[in-house]
């Protein structure tokens, strides 16, 4: 029951996080860094509560493990920040996402892709575009645009959470 309606970009960056494997469009990746000092933003949602300095630009740091409800692992030797360019509500934004280990850049042409199963998943199906079978692994294809938009919505709903009321 392969669903090949999803066309994948030519090259995908694969990485490991919380014991699962993810792949994102390599085209939107700007650079991959060792974890710099992280500044916590009080009051921000746990998914994106950090800021890092990427060559003089202040970039929000997102943790997909929070979105997918995975156990948070301490940063280890292999932990990396993948700096990507994404559009949030039409505004081009640079965002860092955490990865336990960056694997490789793979071509996933003709790889069978399953739609996210409606039941039996511990994470929210709308955040996943599909699950690819590649190199003997199940690789999650996260819908980053959807995840980021949802996160921004959540912040707007909560309003100024930090101000005394």
């Amino acid at each position, binding site marked *: 029951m392969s669903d090949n309606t999803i066309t994948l970009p030519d090259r995908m960056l694969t990485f490991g996080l919380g014991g699962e494997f993810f792949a994102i469009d390599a085209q939107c990746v700007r650079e991959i860094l060792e974890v*710099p*000092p992280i*500044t*916590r*933003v*009080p*009051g*921000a949602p746990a998914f*994106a509560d950090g*800021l*890092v*300095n990427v060559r*003089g*630009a*202040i*970039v*929000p740091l*997102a943790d997909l493990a929070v979105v997918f409800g995975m156990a948070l692992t301490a940063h280890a030797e292999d932990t990396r920040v993948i700096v990507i360019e994404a559009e*949030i*509500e039409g*505004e081009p*934004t*640079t*965002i860092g996402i955490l990865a336990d280990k960056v694997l490789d850049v793979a071509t996933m042409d003709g790889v069978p892709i399953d739609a996210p199963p409606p039941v039996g998943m511990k994470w929210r199906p709308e955040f996943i575009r599909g699950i690819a079978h590649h190199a003997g692994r199940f690789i999650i294809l996260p819908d980053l645009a959807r995840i*980021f938009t949802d*996160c*921004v919505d959540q*912040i*707007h709903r*909560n*309003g*100024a*959470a*930090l*101000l*005394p*009321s």
Partner: protein
Amino acid sequence: MSDNDPVAAFRIEAGELLESVERALLDLTEDAGNRALIDEVFRGLHTLKGSGSMFGFDALAGFTHHCETAFDRVRKGQAAASRGLIDVVLSALDYMQSLLDAGSDADAALVAAGDGILAALASAVSDAPAAAAPTPAVAKGWQVRFRLPPEAMVTGSNPLGLLDELRDLGDCTVTCRFEDVPALADLDPTECHAVWEVTLAGDISREDIEDVFVFVIDDMELEITSLAPEPSAGVAETAAAPTEAPRAAARQTAPAQESVRVQAERLDELMNRVGELVIAQSRLELIAAAGTIDAMTLRAVSEDIQRLSAELRDTSMALRMMPVSNLFGRFRRLIHDLAHETGKTIELVTEGEATEVDKTVIERLADPMIHVIRNSCDHGLEPADERAPAGKPAAGRIVLSARQAGGEVLIAIQDDGRGINRARVRAKAEAQGLIAPGATIGDGELLQMIFAPGFSTAAAITNLSGRGVGMDVVKRSIEALRGTIEIESIEGTGTTITLHLPLTLAIIECMLVRVGEGRYAIPLSAVEECLELPAAEVAGTSRRNFLDVRGDLVPYLRLRDSFASDHPADLYQKVVIVGQGRGRVGLVVDQIIGNTQTVIKSLSRFHGGVGAFSGATILGDGNVALILDVAALIGGAQKAQRARSERPAETAGEAA
């Protein structure tokens, strides 16, 4: 938008053209019949039409053509530049701007809106019979003498083309005079030094000859004398052109808002600094390449780089500065429209237009200032019949002034109207529960009431203002720019609203504090004092979060709690008292680290909505620190305070 996009460049240029036509039209209202201004309007419209059709803005070009035709009639003296015509053309300019924004896909509704304006235009031109129209002066022939500005060839004017056009008018003899051509050693071959004398024979009107020169007339010398004796006119014409030149030059100073015009010398300065930086960098490379590092040489390079980066910072900051004349210029049209709507005569005076302010500040000041000016015109200035008994001239006066004072720019909006009626403000404030009835309150504090949300003393809501939205928005916009507002008002004499704004937004002096493990920056301009948290408060058991600062009760906020810090608290907690406008709040922190210069970076959409932070900055060690939003913290504390003070009253009411 790509940098080389010709359509985008056209939009910017067209915007500037519209602005300059608008300015000329407004000048024309004050100096009706000024030939040079009429020509300027015509030229602007003509250029807009031409380049509009070149870039595919056909609707715009077509529409502009009609306006151009109308103004052509004015030029030829077939119609007068009446007040009515100018108003129609002003509204036509607004319409052109919307056509420009719509681009090639102007829809039917928009096009239909244009037809209405065209109809008004047609009637304005025909309604205004050419009472003042001079009968076209026709003579047997003309003696034309002209000299182009030296840089004419560089700017693309071609004297031969002009001569050809003259030749097309009729038989002519051309004499070229070389008296002013310098000696060969001093000759710059790109400059035009020749003077031409042309004798034109035939039945030609003066206007036809002037038309030939219409695109260069501002900077050139042109004398047209009739071969047949024609009294007076020739003298008057020659006088007009040279005096017009400097005025036209002064008028071309307003740049488009999308792009910044930078003075060439500032760019040169920047390039020099960058050049020096490259040299310093190569010296550094040499040191790094050498086997052993010489501490002395390294220190010298480090000092150089430190000096250069400070200079680079200052020069690049200067690039962002724009004169406030850009801002003030926009209000002329506003005042013109307001005078029209209110039926008052309003005179606008501007002072200190050369004062420079950060580009962002200028952009964000426009809306709040429009509001204040509207208020001044609508509520402040009295109708003419009320002004006479008060011994004031019939024309109301609005003065916009700007000046720099220390690290601040002061922009004042002053009117000579009736002033703020304290009794009415008081009554309204009491009615809205902002102050207790009969409470004693300082005059300054009372005037600040007009900034309260929903506050309006206007007896009737007019088209202009009085809906009670606005002054609080003005106050918030100014505070968002880290500025403050001050009001002075003398009843019967007038009101002055002064905006205090920081010179620049990009770099601010901050106090760096530590809360738990995190470091935060507080804008130093907001810091009033620092004290130690009294031992009685440290325990944090008491419910009331107020400090007694020399008799004043100041609410305070434990940032450790707000930021949910689990790092052990320092033994001696410090309070940083911050204030803005009239509000004060104490922020309890673990440690005061010191002062630092910070470059403000805005937060992404993820964190912009958190509320307590206005931005972030990078510290000397490369880490990121958040900048506290003092205005939001104070606002929050005040809201909390009001909520607390209302609660006992409610319970008392229930008990009764």
